[in-house]
């Protein structure tokens, strides 16, 4: 699972983030110091707000928020855990989670969760599934993200194409992309990169397929999954999207913001960035992903996790419960940075950006599918460009590429 998209903005600011890394918040000198590692400069104010709120209830604890640049976040965490110097609390992603959980690096907070009487049903079930090990509780979800269609109203108006809505099927999406594409003006109907989270995983599940089957082996070569991939390769074949090379040089969200592509299928996490561009803001529309055989949207979320080797396991567990709790969720929602995981706190996020129809992303939870994770996910997802690029470039059929990729995934899973 590559959440890179979501954090690319933060990564771009990594130079400045480096400067900030290590500067703590609060700093009112409690006896117990907890470090809290994150990778998003955008979310730093909200995280510090949460730290302060926790400190107000626990005067003896000093929570220090650290922002690590995205490119080195995981290597820093991994080396820190191996060298017993990891931060106490940190953000965790589903594809990294199994290695840390199985490696015994995460603090089990089941007791603290029970003591605080946390209602686990307040979190989206599909996000809880991502981090479900069956035994321990290694943290609670902080936020989640689902996918929708970000579209450029001005380009739709120019082409006389009606805006996407919840009745859209795949064919509607394709037809609209065709009508919106204007080669002379350098405008494409859609951005079709090889994008798991915002792109082809969604269409695979919309077609009734799976990436990893119920038996735990790859299922990306099934006819349904192949038709999900074809949704994207057809866009490329018909010239309705910039090529992969063009999307390598200028990432899809930038193309969208430059008015070069009319539709960008991606996550709720762009809301703050798109909203932040005041000139572009009035042009931005949101709609649900089109329906294939059924509705589906990938869902993912960050887990607030703790380091098993911490010096203060009790305080840390309390902080983790708090940081994913209702009050913390409200602080996050009001900042507009992310869609908080705690049920009933999403309204503040919607209210923070009233011009966008962000309800689409909250509604998507109902038909959401947890991002497929199995085995060494970092390894087999890393093979995706190698195997799928030929299909996107038209050098191979989607079925051929999917069959080859399927075998490669199985080989990794068999290790």
């Amino acid at each position, binding site marked *: 699972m*590559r959440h*890179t*998209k979501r954090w*690319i903005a933060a990564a771009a600011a*990594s*130079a400045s983030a480096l400067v900030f890394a290590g500067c703590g918040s609060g700093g009112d000198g409690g006896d117990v110091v907890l470090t809290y590692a994150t990778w998003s400069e955008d979310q730093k104010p909200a995280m510090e707000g949460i730290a302060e709120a926790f400190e107000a209830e626990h005067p003896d604890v000093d929570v220090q928020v650290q922002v690590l640049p995205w*490119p080195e976040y*995981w*290597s820093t965490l*991994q080396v820190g*855990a*191996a060298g017993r110097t990891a931060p106490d609390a940190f953000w965790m992603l589903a594809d990294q989670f199994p*290695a*840390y959980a*199985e*490696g*015994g*690096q995460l603090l089990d907070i089941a007791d603290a969760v029970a003591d605080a009487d946390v209602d686990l049903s307040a979190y989206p079930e599909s996000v809880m599934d991502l981090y479900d090990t069956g035994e321990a509780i290694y943290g609670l979800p902080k936020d989640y993200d689902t996918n929708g269609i970000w579209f450029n109203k001005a380009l739709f108006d120019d082409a006389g194409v009606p805006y996407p809505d919840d009745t859209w099927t795949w064919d509607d999406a394709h037809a609209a992309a065709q009508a919106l594409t204007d080669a002379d003006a350098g405008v494409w109907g859609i951005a079709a*990169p*090889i*994008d798991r989270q915002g792109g082809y995983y969604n269409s695979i599940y919309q077609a009734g397929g799976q990436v990893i089957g119920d038996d735990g082996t790859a299922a990306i070569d099934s006819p349904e999954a192949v038709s999900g991939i074809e949704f994207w390769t057809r866009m490329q074949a018909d010239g309705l999207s910039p090529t*992969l*090379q*063009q*999307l*390598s*040089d*200028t*990432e*899809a969200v930038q193309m969208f913001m430059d008015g070069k592509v009319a539709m960008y299928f991606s996550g709720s996490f762009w809301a703050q960035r798109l909203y932040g561009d005041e000139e572009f803001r009035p042009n931005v529309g949101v709609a649900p992903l089109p329906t294939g055989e059924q509705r589906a949207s990938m869902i993912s979320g960050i887990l607030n996790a703790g380091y098993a080797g911490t010096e203060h396991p009790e305080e840390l567990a309390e902080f983790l419960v708090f940081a994913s709790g209702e009050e913390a969720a409200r602080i996050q929602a009001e900042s507009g940075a992310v869609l908080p995981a705690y049920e009933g706190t999403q309204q503040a996020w919607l209210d923070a950006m009233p011009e966008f129809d962000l309800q689409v992303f909250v509604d998507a939870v109902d038909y959401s599918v947890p991002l497929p994770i199995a085995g*060494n996910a*970092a*390894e087999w997802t*890393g093979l995706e*460009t*190698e195997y799928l*690029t030929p299909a996107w470039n038209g050098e191979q059929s989607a079925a051929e590429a999917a069959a080859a990729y399927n075998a490669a995934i199985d080989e990794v899973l068999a290790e």
Partner: protein
Amino acid sequence: MTSESTAAARAAGPPARRRRRAGGLGPSPWWGYAMIAPAFIGLAALYLWPFLKTFTKSFMDTPAFGPGTWTGLDNYTELLGDGEFWQAFGNSAVYTAILLLGVPIAIVLAALVQQLSRGRAVYRVLYFLPVVTLPVAVSMVWRFIYNGDFGLLNWALSLVGIPGQYWVADATYAIYAIGVVGIWMSLGINLIILGAGLQSIPPELYEASSLDGAGRVRQFFRITLPLLSPSVFLVTVLTVISALQMFDLVFVMLRSVDNTALDDSKTIVYLFYEKAFVQFDQGYGAAIAIVLLGVIMIATALQFRLQRRWVFYD
């Protein structure tokens, strides 16, 4: 005559001195070790210990966390049969070759800057700026220059009728495009080393040779180059070592979302990073690091052997 007498003096001198020193102070005074201890401890903790850890890990199958299991040479045999490794090796070799092309460029530029009677410092600063600029900033500027659709380079090429390319999104060109950035970034350091070398060449040689009728070009090849050769040798050795270790430019220029060129343009150290830190396979990563160390040692030893043929020490 003089050399004979100094040789005789040398032969006579040391034993007496050595005897006196040994007699006066006794064998290896403890404070001697104490005084080098800080340097030694630092070296041991920061280099020797990690090296030993890496070396032992390269013979292990390691889980993401915790101790690994001994697997002998498995990592190495897997490495030799791994097409990805050989491709990365080839990319690093190509990159190193490109950076070596930067050495003659640096020599010519250093000689030209040296000729300036005014503004020498200004030029040095200009050439040195890339060295002290953040790689992230450098990569953003170069990504814009290389951009296939809106890039400066393609625009310039279009003026002379050459079709543009997706320089850093097409694996055919990416490593070369990065090599050019590498030359540009390392030029400053090389100019400083070569500039220092140039300043140690006695100006009388130029005066004498110009009286004998030698032109600028002839002076460059007959005086500057031979006398500069120790500096050139140093620059070459450093260039090869740092080029084989190149990681950052691939990381910052190609690791954007879904870059189509990344798969075929990884260097050895990038592959090491990916195996050890992205895929949690530290044992395999360690084996890559050890092989790279061996390659660098061989390359450097080879250069020291070859220097006898072309480096001129006076």
